[in-house]
């Protein structure tokens, strides 16, 4: 059995551990063996996005030391995958040795749905769900990694599930890390638009592949529309749409 290294974002580790477990579960079901480096922490994205490049570099070096020899690194997050795949070589560009290691690692880092569909060629993970679902195209999944078909193929293979179209599915939900903290009014207005489109799609569940969007959208729903449900695709597939903690 092939070993696949789990890259669990800190948001998942702390707030959404079930998403991490679902990731491991799906990989096993797809016939590979997930391994987990206990010393992994954070990929450094918050530091880079806030402008703290030196601190982000420290995170990058730690990550590369830890994951550098893995054959495949898989994460249930698009933005964290982007960080390692595209931003590590950028922020380390002035340190030739590290730049080389970052560049070498980059093609071996995958987002979960991408790894399942493109590499393992698996679409049907045996999940069933009786109802309608919509799919939110998270910014770093869609525009960062160019992933759009893969999650929708995984959803379409779920027995009984109907993937319904949603207006402005490719619009940002208003998370943006520090943005949601510094500009709560704009951010709220954006997530309201997202939820309006979700409700109008008549879907029972909104699915996505990005922990940041999940925290943002579920955080808003929890306060304002607790009946509405948003899930990470991994936990949806692993729990047949039931999930929860």
């Amino acid at each position, binding site marked *: 059995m092939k070993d696949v290294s789990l890259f*669990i974002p800190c948001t998942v*580790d*702390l*707030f*959404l*551990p079930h998403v*991490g*477990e679902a990731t*491991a579960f799906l990989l*096993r079901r797809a016939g590979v063996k*997930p*391994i*987990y480096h*206990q010393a992994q*922490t954070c990929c*450094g994205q918050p*530091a*880079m996005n*806030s*402008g*703290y*490049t*030196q*601190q*982000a570099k*420290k*995170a990058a*070096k*730690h990550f590369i030391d830890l994951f550098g020899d893995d054959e495949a690194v898989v994460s249930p997050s698009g933005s964290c995958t982007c960080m390692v795949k595209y931003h590590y070589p950028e922020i380390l560009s002035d340190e030739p040795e590290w730049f080389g290691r970052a560049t070498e690692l980059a093609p071996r880092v995958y987002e979960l749905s991408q790894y399942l569909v493109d590499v393992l060629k698996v679409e049907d993970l045996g999940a069933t769900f009786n109802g309608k679902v919509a799919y939110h195209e998270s*910014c*770093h999944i869609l*525009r*960062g990694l160019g992933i759009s078909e893969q999650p929708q193929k995984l959803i379409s293979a779920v027995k009984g599930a109907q993937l319904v179209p949603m207006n402005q599915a490719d*619009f*940002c939900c*208003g*998370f*943006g*890390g*520090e*943005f*949601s*903290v*510094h*500009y*709560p*009014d*704009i*951010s*709220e*207005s*954006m*997530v309201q*638009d997202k939820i309006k489109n979700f409700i109008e799609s008549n879907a029972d569940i909104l699915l996505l592949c990005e922990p940041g969007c999940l*925290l943002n959208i579920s*955080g*808003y729903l*929890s*306060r304002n529309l607790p009946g509405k449900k948003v899930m990470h695709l991994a936990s949806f597939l692993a729990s047949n749409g039931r999930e929860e*903690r």
Partner: protein
Amino acid sequence: MQIKTEEFAELAKREVAKSRAYPSLKNAPNMLYTKRMVGMKTLPDVAAYQAYGAAIRAEALNRLPELLEEFEKNAVANGAKVVWSRNAKEADEYIVNLAKERGAKFVIKGKSMVTEEIGLNDTLNDQGIVPWETDLGEFIAQQMQRPPFHIVAPAINLTCEEICEVFMKQVDMKERTLDPVALGLAARLFLREKFHRASFGVAGVNVAVAETGTTINLENEGNIRFTKSSPRTLVLVMSIEKVVPTMKDAMHIVRLLSRNCTGQRLPAYVSMDSGPKRTGEIDGPDEMIIVIVDNGRSKLYQDTRAREALRCIRCAACLNTCPVYRQIGGYSYGWVYSGPMGQVLMPLLLGLDRTQHLYRATTLCGACKSVCPAGIDHPKLFLYYRSMDVSGAPYFKGKKRPSGEGRFFKAWSMALTHAWLWNLGVRLARNVINKFAADGVISKLPGGTFAGWFEKRDLPAIAKKTFRERWKETKGGN
């Protein structure tokens, strides 16, 4: 125009409330966005056309000094005069003095963002010369003393009621009407007389062609062509980055600009000027002066990364697609330009210290980059500005961040390379913040860095057992 970039957060908050009260405000960018999508479909290979545009703009910038000299040489050979202005003041003074020398009592203007940038209308007004904007949207905005809401459609946010109100007072409109065509006619009748009597015209430039010394304008109302052909003296104002090497390059930019901007294959009017009226010609100005404005651009040009911001061709596709612009509109950005193109340009023109909001009020969603025909990577520039802001880079007046934030990231980066320290931090944070949780949900934390989050949303409590702890306990579920 007063610079209010530091007030972004308050302005945006006000505008969000406004668009909540008048949801139709959100329709305008969406309409332009949809038109663009339709227009782009007329291209056989969108990605290739956009990439070609990006390559032209990249080459134009890399060769900028040389191309400007070539443009000047050819424009002068065509009979135009070329004037270089280091800053807004120089440009304004030159134009105002010329207008005085020519005895102009008023000036007719074609819509031009760079004249907004240099505050030309204010300077003209101060000197007793009345500037008349002749683009309908710009005319309305001018009458209402509003800044442009959108760089292409400056009054697109205003209602017919508001326009009727101001036209009754200021534009000699005889009867109240909410019919947009009738409002348009009132403006035309009012401006027609200005056009006929005008001796002095000012317009901008969309593209300048180095190899021919030609300037090109794109528009849909014919007012720019009128402005350029009616008066004896014509002043064309352009910023230094408008030049491209060849006419073929310019035609490709025209193709992209019209489609990305309004979804048109071509706008109603494309006019090209290679010098003033020549002997034997019956039309055109007696003299043509091209004012080339720097206003901080050659300084930012020295930074080869920041230079990318100058690629912009002002199509405004990034505004129409931007999820933030769609919520807050153009008034929030606090100066001339708005949306992502303004957010990458204004910090370099004004300094990073007074524009922090502009490069931080973005989710880095990349929608702007995905539509840009000039190949600007806006998110990458925002990250670059943020890093210069944190390091206090003096060249662009980087401003150090609050010390608490710096201390946080230092401690954080120390912890993340030592798993034991990281885990200790997680346990401590869990003990502290989970005290505020009810049923596994935190709705409020007293004060602190993350207060903004809890203003609008909840957060799950930190898991009783993190993924790492669960994995350890179950030995990875094996």
